[in-house]
């Protein structure tokens, strides 16, 4: 019988621990498919961060390093400088990257470090049970913004791609989503290009992936996909911010 669907080699056989309806698993799969297609599993080192994906070093088949909260870009810098021939990626959530790790993500882009960041944005802290993140939407109820995020109290959501795309060292910057098949396919294309940009030695590349958190949003998986489309995308418009026409 012909095989029509299989697990990418770059993923291990371990069952993932993510909640039902969470799109982390999809993003993992996309990264692994890209690693397979580029044939770089043996020369790739991934950096796990702190958040729901803290232990995804168990899910990827390439060498993996676990980093402190927010510090993955600095850790990746050290790894890449020792073995510039390797592909190095960080996998970070919005709490990790856009709050405690703001300095690290900005300066990895300032240096134009030749690494790739997969930035999973679900507008909330998932692992610690649904606190407000810098990316939380105006009006969004979380355990630390129980009356909804109010600009006069908690300020405004941070648009990471727009901010980083002002830096010349960030040569490929794109925001994608996981809310339907078409967008998932686009997400894969962006992730692949981000890795190719790195392999070509052009500079820092980042793909922001809008993702669900049904558990902490208090929505079912289907409602969650709709919530991305209807609530998140207006705040976080999809598209390429930098490097669309780069030849790789």
């Amino acid at each position, binding site marked *: 019988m012909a095989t029509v669907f299989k697990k990418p080699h770059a993923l291990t056989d371990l069952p993932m621990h993510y909640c039902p309806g969470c799109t982390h698993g999809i993003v993992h799969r996309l990264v692994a498919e890209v690693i397979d297609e580029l044939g770089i*599993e*043996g*020369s*790739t*080192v991934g*950096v*796990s961060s702190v958040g729901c994906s*803290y*232990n995804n*070093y*168990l899910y*990827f*088949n*390439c*060498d*993996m*390093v*676990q*980093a*402190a909260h927010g*510090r993955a870009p*600095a*850790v*990746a*810098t*050290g*790894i*890449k*400088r*020792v*073995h510039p021939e*390797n592909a190095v990626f960080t996998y970070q959530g919005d709490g990790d990257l856009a709050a405690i790790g703001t*300095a*690290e993500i*900005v*300066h990895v882009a*300032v*240096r134009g470090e030749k690494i790739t960041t997969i930035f999973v944005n679900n507008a909330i802290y998932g692992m610690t049970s649904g606190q407000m993140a810098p990316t939380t939407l105006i009006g969004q109820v979380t355990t630390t913004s129980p009356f909804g995020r109010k600009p006069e109290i908690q300020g405004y959501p941070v648009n990471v791609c727009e901010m980083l795309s002002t830096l010349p060292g960030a040569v490929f910057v794109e925001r994608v989503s996981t809310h339907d098949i078409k967008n998932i396919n686009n997400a894969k294309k962006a992730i692949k290009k981000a890795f190719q940009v790195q392999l070509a030695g052009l500079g820092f590349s980042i793909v922001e992936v809008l993702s669900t958190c049904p558990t902490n949003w208090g929505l079912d998986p289907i409602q969650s996909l709709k919530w991305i489309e209807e609530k998140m995308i207006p705040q976080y418009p999809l598209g390429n911010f930098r490097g669309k026409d780069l030849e790789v």
Partner: protein
Amino acid sequence: MGEKILMKGNEVIAEAALRAGCKHYFGYPITPQTEIAHYFAKKMPQYGGTFVQAESEIAAMNMVYGAASAGARAMTSSSSPGISLKQEAISYTACAELPAVVVNIVRCGPGLGGILAAQCDYFQATKGGGHGDYRLVVLAPSSVQELYELTVDAFNIADRYRTICMVMGDGMLGQMMEAVEFRDTEEKFETDKSWATTGSGMKREHNIVTSIYIEPEILEKHNLKLQAKYAEITKNETRVETFNCEDADIIVAAYGTVARIIKNVIKTAEKDGIKVGLIRPITLWPFPTAAFEKYAEVPKAFLAVEMSAGQMVEDVRLAVNGKRPVHFHGRMGGMIPTQKEILQKIKEILK
């Protein structure tokens, strides 16, 4: 051995690291240790290595974590306030069992404090400045020559035990120019780093470097492994200099810059008919308890002299274990204890 060269302490640290095969330095400017970064910035290209000026001390130490994960000899350096910022990554590095070297050229605190020499980071270095049950090997040089030799040793100790080694000098040593004699080649401890995340090459299972162990049974087991390693280090790596301790009237405990002052005090005191001994810990952790035990009943009293409010004195008291009184004399804020005031303190104690 080669010829003697006059060099600044901070530059000698960087030169020693290069000679020890460290090709990856990550730093952030802070007085009084920045010459270390200047030296690396200039020299690293010749060695085919990397010098990165990080955005913060936090990032610099995390870069060391990354470079060490990738199997390289890596180091960072800073001074007190910057070392405080590195504590998070130091704890992670200890738990992940990564070999790394951290240099602290101590300045006076607390807070932003001042930029002059002090020894006020002893607690932070030896009792665990970061969270969790871990230890740093802490080497305390007292001359520029020793800055060189102990920096080289730090890399070998780090690799041998997969642990962090700190070279702790002070602003005086870092800024001091003194003759130094380099060896023609350095003995480099060669070790298998098959655990490193260098890329699997599809030839082995993937390697993982981590400091998180969610299962309590596994984390306890990991802690026991770390403790066994620290016991091994204590057994093998404890270093101390004892001087003039036989029949001493009083034994002074001092390290680093202060130990140099004590050697002059010993000469002056001799003229007054007082025999002063010196126990100079070279490793602050592991602390040379045995040297104190050996001489515990020889003098009338012990005196710890430090450029702090009294930190190492606690370990001296533990080591002497009540057999003799242990006194303390210290200066703070960048003030250096003088021979005269130390001698006066000795005379008061012996009165």
